[in-house]
């Protein structure tokens, strides 16, 4: 039974990480309906910038964290400006392939700067945060990441609900033309949503880096695992991303524990195909209505 709970806890925390990683992805999809294949590289970018500030410039963790988020924000803004704006209204495959190209470029650049080795951050999380639940110890990093995740969820909950920019973003997601005619600056909203998504991705990347170590290949693989998560949760629902992430994480953990470990990485995709066959728009997603 203890094995079960250990797997459960592992799965939940892993799933929560997937959920957090998927949040940025959903944000981009929600406002600009772009399927971002460069999401894993955005995660990696955040993790590496944080690493650079911690290791090279020896800045303490909290200021480094804030600087990283600011840089990621700026980077997201820039990406939208330079690469995605010219493609508004172009066929889907071009947009998808553009993000694939971007992913390849970013991966190349990161490998060029840092190489493909596994890095770890210096210890900066106090050990006093260890929690113990009925004999199962929970690592402090998981607690910190959980808290970070909740804080970000709350911030974005409030952001979407009460700030004008958040409401604009929701309106653009809902109906672009109606938003345009009501005076919403759609282009600025696109840029803003990319910037915020890159910021969230950077945050998730740091959390992932703290837990698993930092490696471009692994982080970009997680970027691809975001797809089952968001399909399960519905492509345009942030809460759905967390739920989907948790489900996928728990399933992965149990497959790894009770079946064969090698099946672990494929299970999400098998589930994905199953869901697409049965309920194509996800558990919480909106059904698209289309007219000729």
């Amino acid at each position, binding site marked *: 039974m203890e094995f079960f709970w250990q797997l459960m806890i592992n799965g939940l925390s892993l799933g929560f990480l997937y959920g957090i990683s998927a949040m940025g992805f959903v944000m981009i999809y929600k406002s600009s309906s772009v399927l971002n294949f460069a999401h894993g590289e955005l995660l990696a970018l955040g993790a590496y910038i944080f690493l650079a500030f911690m290791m090279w410039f020896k800045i303490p963790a909290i200021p480094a964290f804030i600087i990283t988020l600011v840089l990621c924000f700026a980077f997201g803004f820039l990406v939208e400006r330079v690469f995605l704006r010219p493609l508004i209204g172009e066929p*889907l495959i071009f947009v998808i392939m553009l993000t694939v190209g971007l992913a390849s470029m970013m991966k190349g*650049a990161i*490998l060029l700067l840092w190489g493909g080795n596994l890095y770890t951050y210096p210890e900066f999380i106090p050990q006093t945060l260890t929690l113990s639940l009925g004999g199962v110890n929970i690592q402090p990093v998981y607690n910190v990441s959980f808290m970070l995740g909740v804080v970000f969820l709350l911030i974005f909950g409030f952001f979407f609900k009460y700030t004008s920019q958040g409401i604009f973003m929701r309106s653009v997601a809902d109906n672009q033309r109606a938003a345009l005619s009501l005076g919403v600056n759609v282009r600025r909203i696109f840029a803003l949503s990319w910037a915020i998504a890159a910021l969230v991705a950077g945050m998730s990347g740091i959390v992932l880096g703290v837990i698993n170590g930092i490696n471009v290949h692994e982080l970009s693989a997680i970027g691809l695992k975001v797809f089952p998560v968001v399909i399960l949760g519905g492509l345009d629902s942030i809460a759905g991303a967390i739920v989907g992430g948790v489900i996928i994480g728990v399933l992965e953990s149990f497959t790894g524990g009770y079946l064969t470990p090698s099946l672990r*990485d494929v299970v999400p*995709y098998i589930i994905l195909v199953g869901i*697409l*066959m049965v309920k194509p728009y996800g558990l919480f997603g909106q059904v698209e209505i289309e007219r000729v």
Partner: protein
Amino acid sequence: MRALKFRRCGNFHESYREELNVFETDFGRFWVVIGFFFVFLILPFVATPYVLYLVTNIAIYAIAVIGLNILTGYTGQISLGHGAFFGVGAYAAAIMATRFHMPFLLSVFAGGLITATVGLVFGLPSSRLKGLYLAIATLAGQFIIEYVLIHWEEVTMGTMGINLPRPTIFGVDVGGDVKFYFIAFIFLFFFLWMAVNLMRTRYGRAFIAIRDNDRAAEGMGIPIFPYKLLSFAVSSFYAGVAGALWAFFTMTITTEPFNLGLSVEFIAMVIIGGMGNMSGAIFGTVFISLLNEGLRLMADILINARIFDQAALTMAPLKEFAFGLAIVLFILIEPRGLAEVWRIVRSNFRLWPFSY
């Protein structure tokens, strides 16, 4: 004998039949003859083994890219799983040749047929999904097929790989660089010819109608789902045949090359060449292959020069970067690809000096 047509400066079609002509002018036919001459009679006898290897590789990839172009460029369905389909073809042919001792041609076509079946299965989601959902479904297909290839060890030998026998046609040995070069190009021309003509039939026109607007196509009486599946099957058949040829070409296969990177490379070839254009598929394949080889050669030169040992080590990521940059630049600057660039160049020559 009718008069030859070489230059035209407008659209002079008088019947639908003329619209369907493969070559608009005899100039096109002339160039095809020159191309045949060059490919079959000149190149194999002057090229170094390295160039020959490169060109054979391009020919084999081009078959797969033509197939993907039928699916993506003409039917408008995105597939991120063609790298895996290519692998299925390679493995199917290898297994047919080693376990069941099938002759070369039969195992290549068996590889194609098996891949077409697999492609059909992964095309099933297209009944309800389109656009990005289909892209995600085929992405999942890529990972699942890769997993099966690695872990179904009784059949695929897992990470050990399979060694293939030398290919023979009716007892004649066709292995080796030069002979296989001819085989690859005969296959390429045959499949190119099939694809060009497929697009002139009712099936091809139905594909194009589905690409342009699937609801409207349905309204006009085209049963969308069977046609989408057909497109998936034809496209995977092409990928499978190409994979099978590739397996016989390299003589030994492992699961490693058939990853997502290969799928992305295929799509990049289609886009950079020009979607919905058969010559584009060839252009794109040549471009990406030469880009890869060029960057690799650069790395070799740097290593041999012994100046930039450190820089040479970083060439692999630079290759990745350049590949991404090529995709991004083409999409931003010329989304219709090299075929469109070629068309513009041609029409500039034809209309010179009055370019309007």
